[in-house]
């Protein structure tokens, strides 16, 4: 299964990922990006997560597909 990894140094919690894949990403009120899964991405959300990875303005997201 594909996995998404967040680089916590690069992430500024802008929430562009959240707007593209709301089932996977959420920026909390404390300004931290939270993954709503344990990092595993099912097929249903894969396209949205690909868009989020490509759209991240700080290149903080990586998708590992096997």
């Amino acid at each position, binding site marked *: 299964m594909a996995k998404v990894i967040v680089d916590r140094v*690069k992430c*500024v*919690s*802008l*929430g*562009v990922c*959240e*707007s593209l894949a*709301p089932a996977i990403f*959420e*920026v*909390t*009120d*404390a*300004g*931290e990006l939270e993954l709503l899964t344990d990092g595993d991405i099912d097929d249903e959300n894969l396209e949205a997560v690909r*868009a989020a990875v*490509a*759209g991240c*303005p*700080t*290149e903080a997201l990586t998708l590992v597909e096997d």
Partner: protein
Amino acid sequence: MPETTTDLPSFPVPRERPFEPPSAYAQWRESGPLTKVRLPNGSAAWAVTRYADVREVLSTAGASADKMRPGFPHLRSGVIALSTDSNLEFMDEPDHGKYRRMLSPMFTARRVDTMRPAIQQIVDGALDRMLESGPPADLHGSLSLPVPSLVICQLLGVPYTDHDFFQSLTVRMLDTTTTRDEFASSLQRLHEYLLAMVKEKAGNPTDDVVGMLLDGPARAGEVTHEQIAGFAMLLLVAGHETTANQISMGTLSLLREPAKHEAIRRNLELLPGAIEEMLRVSAITDLVMLRLATEDIDIGGCPVKAGEAIVPLGAAANHDPQAYSDPGEFEPSRGSRSHLTFGFGMHSCLGQNLARAELEIVFRTLFARVPTLRLDADIDDLPFKKDGVVFGVHELPVAW
């Protein structure tokens, strides 16, 4: 690094046509990765025109956004004076990230969604007044300018009874007939107002940006009341003129292509893609993203030395044929958010989710309430902001 710059092409270069970057950008892009240009103060800077290179400059830690550094490229002297300890736009890491993380929860897609009913009400109110007064009407003055100003009121939690005061000052500050003295006094009055508002809310935290900053970071001793007032001013400066000009340029990009306008109006699924194309093609923030190399770096195979000024050009990147086929075409079906109008990297626009929501609500509402909207002038006669830092139009005459 004293050097003669008189032979270099001068910069900025005005656009020949409103929806195209200056033709010089294409020549520079073809002739080399970087082009040395002469800034208004006579100093040299590297102009960056290729999409991949602009992204590289905006995301490398070797290029600073801190305009107080000696050698930083300045395009004009009249830079709005914001206090430096609040102005994220010009801060480097780690300070930038620290403050930005305090603000970002207020600008997430989820948070913006909760603002939609209020934005709709603001858009409807502005349109009510425009429709009562015309046709004809100036859409820029009656819709584009008031909407983002009132949305910022909402965001900051400016009490409703103060909206008229807030709006008259913010619009006055953007008016070209405003003198330097009037501008300075408006800025001062606004700052005093915001600081008084922050102090008043301090006893009684509210569900808005100011309230949240007071409740969290201020209570923890991480920011002062002055800084919160500074952040409020920053949100206004960054979110008002940009959004206003994008509403007008976006409207114009529809009105100049009636067949596409009609297709989008009839199929709202095309609207998100159309908004990204409005942002990409009009590229109003072309001149906003300036940098200074703080170490020796390599951009597109060209060495840039520490201390050299860099001008990454958003309009050149957005119109790079290597990144977009037929880049001059407004093509909603591209469905790409990859344009650099909101910048890129750590400094990419904090308000981009909010700006997208404002644009979407404005156009949905225009489609529903003014389906026969048309331009009431020749596009070539419109007064474009040829020498502004943010591109746009001073007036947008429409009829219906």
